[in-house]
C-alpha cells in the first residue's frame, strides 16, 4: 500500500464539475437522435391478475402511431434479472404488481404516444393480491411458481450456541420493529435512448443506466444479438442510489426490442409518477428480535427473525437479506448469533438495491434494541455501546476475526460524541424534558459495513479497466464503473494518476462505453473505489513493467527496481521524466497499455448449524452517526438540530467529496427516518404518493446547517489505494440515529417501532405515553 500520496488524499475539483454546473452535461433525455420514436407504457390495472387480452386497435388507428409492442414481440427470452431471472419486461401470463408494463405504444412524438396509450384496453382476470410478506409465506396464492411458499431467499448467519447464551443471560430484551418502502428519489427520472445500427445487427443504448454490463446480457438474451454488438453508453446520470439498475434495464429492453423491429431510434422516458410506480424500492423489513446480556449489559447473544418484502420480483432481495443477516448485528461483540433473514414475494412494488441494501432497516431495529438494553441496565446509550463495541483482533458477530484492519468504531463514536457534546447534552436534555413540551433527544447509531459484495458473491466480485498511455504521455483511461453523481470518475482518475505516477492533468477518463472498457462488475455495493482501485493498480503495474522492459532495451541495461512517482521515473540511480519514459517506450514501438483485473479474494464463509458462519466480507467500514432532535409533543413535529457522522472509509481518495457523500447520506437518512412515505395500500398493493408533493423529502430548510461529516481515516491494507466503502456507510446509520433521538426525547427507548417517524405517528406515541404515565 502507498504511504506518501501525490494525488489521492488531496481535495480535487471533480472532473465533470464545470459541465454540470454550467448545465452543459447531457443527460439521457437531452439526447436528440434523428427522428426517434417515443414510447409510452401502459401499466397494469391490477397488482395481480391474469392477462386475458390487449385491445390495441384504437391506439393503432391514431395518426403517428407506429406500433404497440408487447410480450409477443420479444424474440428470445422474455425475462431479465441480475441474479435471478424472473422479471418479465412485458406482462406475459399475469400481472405481479401495479408497476408492471402491459405494452408500449410507439409514436412519432411523445404526445402522440401518450394520447394513444390511453386508448389501449386490457382484459384481466383478477387474482387475490398479497401485500404482506408475513401472510404471503405459505399462502395458497403463489406469485412465482418456482417458489411455492413465496419465500425466495433465506439467509441464516450463525455463531455459537444461541439458546445456551440466551439461557445464561441476566437480561433479555425482546422487541419487534418494521420499516416501510423508501423511494430512491433521484432527481432525474429514468430515460433510455436506443440507436440501432443500419450497418449491422447492432444496438447502442444511452441513458440513465447504472449497470451497463448486466444490461448488455439482458438485451442480448432478449434479442439474440451478441454482446459485442450491444453497446452501452450511459449518459450523465442524475442520481441513482442503487435505483437505476433493473427498472432502467427493463426499459432499455423494451426500447431495444422496438428499435430492433422498427430500425428506428427510440426515446423512452418516464414521468416522475411512472418512475415511482414502476421502479423498485428499498425493502420494508419486519424484525422480531431477542437479545441476551449479562447484568452489566454486555451482549451474550442475539436472535433475530427478519422478513423482507421482495415484492413482485426477486430482484436483489436475497442479496439484501444477506446484508441484513450479516451486518444487521452491528459492530458488537457477542458470543452467539442467530440471524435469519427471509425474502418473500408479494404483489407489492418489487424491492432491490438501494443505498444501504438491507442495513438501514436492520440498524434501526438493532440500535433501538441497544437503547432498550441501556434503559434496563440504567446506563446511557453511549455507555452501553462502549461496553459492547468491537476492538482490534475481536471476532465479529458472524465469526470474522478482525486482525487485518483498524477496528475504529470506538474512535468514530468518540469523535461524534465530542463534536455533538454528547455527555453534557445527554444529562441536560433529561432534565430539560421534565418541564418542556418541546423535548430534546440524542441518538446514536453504529454500523460496520462489508466492503463490496461479500461472500455471497465469492468468486465473481471482479473489476476491470483499460489504461493506455498515448505517445505524448497523456493517458486515456476507460472503466465500466458508472458515474452516478457521487464523484466516481474523479476518484478513479485520481487513483489512475497516483498508480501511474503521473499528474492528474494527464489523465482523461473516457465516458463509460462497453465497447471501449472491458467487462466489469457494476457500480454497486459501495465497491467502486476498492474494486476500481484494484483494477487500476493492476493495469498500472503492468504498464510499469512494459516501460521498464522498454527502458532496459533502449538503455541496454538491466533494471532491478524502478519507481514511478510524481511525474518522475527513477531507476539505476537515474531519474527521467514520465514523458521521457513514455517516449522511449514508443521509440521502440512498445505499447504502454494494459487491462487491469482485480478480484476480491474468496473469504471463508461456511455452513454451520443449519446456517452459515465465518467471514461474510473481505473488509469493513466502521461508522457512527449521532443526531440531536427537538420533538414538539403537541404536534408530533420533529426538528433535526444537528447530525454528526464519522466514517472510516479507509482512505478518503478525494476528501472533500468524501465529506459530500456523508453529508448527502445524512439527509437521505433524515428523509427515511422522518417523512418519506409512499402510502402503500395494503388492500391492493398500490402506492399513493407518486410525486414529491406528498412523498416528503427533506428540503434545505429542514437540513441543519450544523451537520458535520468526519473522515476517520485508516488506510486499508486490503485495498490497493487504501480506500474501501463509503457510499452506503454514509447513509445507513442516520435514520436510526434520528429515531433513537426521538425515542429519547419521548422518554422511552424503542418507543416507536415503525419508520418513518412522521407527524401523526409521533403525536399518537406521545398521547399513548401520557396514558401510560410518562
Amino acid at each position, binding site marked *: 500500500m502507498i504511504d506518501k500520496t501525490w494525488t489521492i488524499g488531496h481535495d480535487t475539483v471533480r472532473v465533470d464539475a464545470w459541465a454540470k454546473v454550467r448545465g452543459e452535461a447531457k443527460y439521457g433525455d437531452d439526447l436528440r437522435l434523428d427522428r426517434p420514436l417515443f414510447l409510452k407504457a401502459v401499466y397494469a390495472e391490477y397488482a395481480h391478475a391474469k392477462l386475458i387480452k390487449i385491445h390495441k386497435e384504437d391506439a393503432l388507428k391514431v395518426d403517428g402511431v407506429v406500433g404497440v409492442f408487447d410480450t409477443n414481440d420479444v424474440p428470445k427470452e422474455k425475462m431479465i434479472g441480475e441474479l435471478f431471472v424472473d422479471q418479465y419486461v412485458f406482462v406475459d401470463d399475469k400481472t405481479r404488481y401495479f408497476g408492471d408494463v402491459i405494452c408500449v405504444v410507439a409514436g412519432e412524438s411523445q404526445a402522440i404516444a401518450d394520447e394513444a396509450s390511453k386508448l389501449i384496453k386490457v382484459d384481466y382476470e383478477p387474482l387475490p393480491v398479497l401485500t404482506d410478506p408475513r401472510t404471503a409465506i405459505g399462502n395458497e396464492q403463489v406469485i412465482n411458481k418456482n417458489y411455492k411458499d413465496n419465500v425466495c431467499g433465506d439467509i441464516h448467519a450463525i455463531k455459537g450456541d444461541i439458546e445456551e447464551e440466551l439461557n445464561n443471560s441476566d437480561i433479555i430484551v425482546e422487541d419487534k420493529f418494521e420499516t416501510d418502502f423508501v423511494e430512491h428519489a433521484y432527481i432525474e427520472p429514468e430515460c433510455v435512448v436506443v440507436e440501432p445500427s443500419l450497418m449491422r445487427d447492432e444496438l447502442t443504448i444511452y441513458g440513465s443506466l447504472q449497470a451497463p454490463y448486466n444490461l448488455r446480457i439482458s438485451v442480448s438474451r432478449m434479442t439474440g444479438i451478441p454482446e459485442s454488438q450491444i453497446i452501452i453508453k450511459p449518459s450523465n446520470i442524475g442520481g441513482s442510489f442503487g435505483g437505476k439498475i433493473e427498472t432502467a434495464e427493463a426499459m432499455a429492453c423494451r426500447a431495444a426490442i422496438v428499435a430492433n423491429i422498427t430500425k428506428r431510434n427510440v426515446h423512452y422516458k418516464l414521468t416522475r409518477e411512472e418512475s415511482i410506480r414502476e421502479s423498485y424500492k428499498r425493502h420494508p423489513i419486519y424484525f422480531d428480535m431477542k437479545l441476551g446480556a449479562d447484568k452489566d449489559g454486555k451482549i451474550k447473544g442475539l436472535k433475530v427473525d427478519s422478513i423482507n418484502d421482495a415484492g413482485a420480483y426477486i430482484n436483489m432481495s436475497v442479496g439484501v437479506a444477506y446484508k441484513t443477516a450479516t451486518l444487521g448485528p452491528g459492530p458488537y461483540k457477542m458470543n452467539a448469533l442467530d440471524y435469519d433473514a427471509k425474502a418473500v414475494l408479494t404483489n407489492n412494488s418489487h424491492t432491490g438495491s438501494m443505498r444501504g441494501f438491507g442495513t438501514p432497516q436492520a440498524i434501526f431495529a438493532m440500535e433501538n434494541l441497544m437503547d432498550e438494553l441501556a434503559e434496563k441496565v440504567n446506563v446511557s446509550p453511549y455507555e452501553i455501546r462502549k461496553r459492547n463495541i468491537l476492538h482490534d483482533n475481536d471476532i465479529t458477530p458472524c465469526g470474522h476475526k478482525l486482525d487485518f484492519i483498524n477496528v475504529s468504531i470506538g474512535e468514530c463514536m468518540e469523535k461524534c460524541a465530542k463534536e455533538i457534546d454528547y455527555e453534557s447534552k445527554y444529562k441536560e436534555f433529561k432534565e430539560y424534558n421534565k418541564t418542556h*413540551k418541546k423535548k430534546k433527544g440524542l441518538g446514536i447509531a453504529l454500523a460496520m459495513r462489508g466492503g463490496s459484495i461479500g461472500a455471497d458473491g465469492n468468486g465473481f466480485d471482479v473489476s476491470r479497466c483499460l489504461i493506455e498511455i498515448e505517445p505524448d504521455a497523456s493517458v486515456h483511461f476507460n472503466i465500466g464503473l458508472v458515474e452516478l453523481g457521487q464523484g466516481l470518475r474523479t476518484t478513479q482518475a485520481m487513483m489512475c494518476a497516483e498508480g501511474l505516477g503521473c499528474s492528474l492533468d494527464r489523465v482523461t477518463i473516457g465516458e463509460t462505453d462497453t465497447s471501449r472498457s472491458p467487462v466489469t462488475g457494476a457500480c454497486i455495493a459501495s465497491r467502486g473505489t476498492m474494486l476500481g482501485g484494484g483494477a487500476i493498480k493492476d493495469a498500472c503495474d503492468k504498464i510499469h513493467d512494459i516501460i521498464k522492459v522498454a527502458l532496459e532495451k533502449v538503455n541496454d541495461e538491466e533494471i532491478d527496481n524502478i519507481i514511478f512517482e510524481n511525474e518522475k521515473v527513477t531507476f539505476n540511480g537515474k531519474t527521467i521524466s514520465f514523458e521521457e519514459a513514455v517516449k522511449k517506450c514508443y521509440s521502440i514501438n512498445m505499447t504502454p497499455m494494459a487491462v487491469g483485473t482485480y478480484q476480491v479474494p474468496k473469504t471463508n464463509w461456511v455452513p454451520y448449524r443449519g446456517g452459515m458462519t465465518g467471514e461474510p466480507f473481505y473488509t469493513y467500514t466502521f461508522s457512527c452517526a449521532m443526531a440531536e432532535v427537538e420533538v414538539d409533543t*403537541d*404536534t408530533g413535529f420533529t426538528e433535526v438540530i444537528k447530525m454528526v457522522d464519522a466514517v472510516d472509509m479507509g482512505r478518503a481518495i478525494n476528501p472533500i467529496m468524501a465529506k459530500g457523500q456523508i453529508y448527502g447520506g445524512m439527509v437521505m437518512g433524515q428523509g427515511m427516518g422522518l417523512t418519506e412515505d409512499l402510502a402503500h395500500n395494503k388492500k391492493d398493493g398500490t402506492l399513493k404518493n407518486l410525486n414529491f408533493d406528498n412523498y416528503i*423529502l*427533506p*428540503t434545505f*430548510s429542514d437540513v441543519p446547517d450544523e451537520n458535520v461529516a468526519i473522515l476517520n481515516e485508516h488506510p486499508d491494507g486490503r485495498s490497493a489505494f487504501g480506500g474501501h466503502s463509503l457510499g452506503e456507510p454514509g447513509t445507513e446509520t442516520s435514520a436510526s440515529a434520528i429515531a433513537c433521538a426521538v425515542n429519547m426525547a419521548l422518554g422511552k427507548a424503542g418507543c416507536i417501532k415503525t419508520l418513518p417517524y412522521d407527524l401523526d405517528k409521533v*403525536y399518537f406515541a406521545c398521547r399513548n405515553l401520557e396514558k401510560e404515565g410518562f
Partner: protein
Amino acid sequence: MNNVKCKKYFRPETLLELKDFLKNTSENVSYIAGGTDLILHAREKDIYENNIIVDIFNLKELKGIKEEGDKIVIGAGATHTDVEQSDIVNKYAKVLALACRSVGSVLIRNHSTLCGNICNASPAGDSLSSLAVLGAKLRVLRDDKIIELDFFDVIDKPEVNKLQNKDLVVEIVINKLDENVKCDFFKLGRRKALAISRMTISTICKTDESGNVVLFNITCGATFPKPMTFEDVNNILIGKKPSKELIDEVAKKLSDKIPEIAGIRKSTAYKQPVCEKMVKRVLSKMLLNEEV
C-alpha cells in the same frame, strides 16, 4: 406552456386590451398568473382543452400594493413575495405577511400570486385563514364593471370558486388593522419548506388600556372545506380580560368546529386535538406571554 392543452393562449399587454378581449369572447376563460397551480393541474388532466388561457402575469395594472385610506389594496398580480415584503402589509396586516412567507419556497413565492391562492380555493391554501380573519374583499371585473365581493362568498368548496366565467379579480382589499393589533400566524406542515399545510392558525387581537380584548379574530385553515370565521369563538374573548380559562375555552370551541363542520375524517383524530393545543400555545404566548 407548450404542454398545456388549451383552445388558445392569450397574453394581453394592457388591461384595456384584456377588457376588449373579454367583451368580444363567449369562450370559457381560465386565467393564469404565476402558474404554480394551473400548470400542475394541466399536467395531471386535460381540463383546459376547451378554454382560452389568458395570461395576466405581466399586466402592470394588476401589480403593486397600495393604501387607499383605511384600506390596503393588493393587486391581483402581486406575488407572495411582494406581499410578504410589503411595508404596508407588514404594518397594517402583519398576519397576511406572515402567511405569505409560509407559502412553498422562495422560488414558488417569487412567482405565485396571493390572488391565485384565493381563486384556486384549495382548503390547504396557506393565505386563506389570514384573509379570513382580516375579512378580505375582492374587486372583480365583471361585464366591464368593477364589483366588490366578499372573500367568503367567492370560495365555495374545495377547489371551486364562485366566480363567473370571465370574472377577473383585479384587487384584494383589506381593512387596515391598527398598528397595535397583535398578529400571529402558525403553520403546521410535514417539513419546513414546500409543505402542504396540515393546519394553519391565524390570529388577530387587540386589547385596550385596561387589558380587555376589544378585537379578536381567530380561525384555522386546512381544516374546513372553505375559509370560515366563528363569531361564537371570537366572542369568548371579546370584552374580557384574557385568562387561561378563556383561552382554553377558545381552543376547545375552535377545535370542536373541525368535526362539526368537516365531519369526522381520518385526519380528525390528529387535527382536532392538535388545533386545541396550538390555539392554547398561540394565545398564551400572545396574551399571557406564557409558553405552554
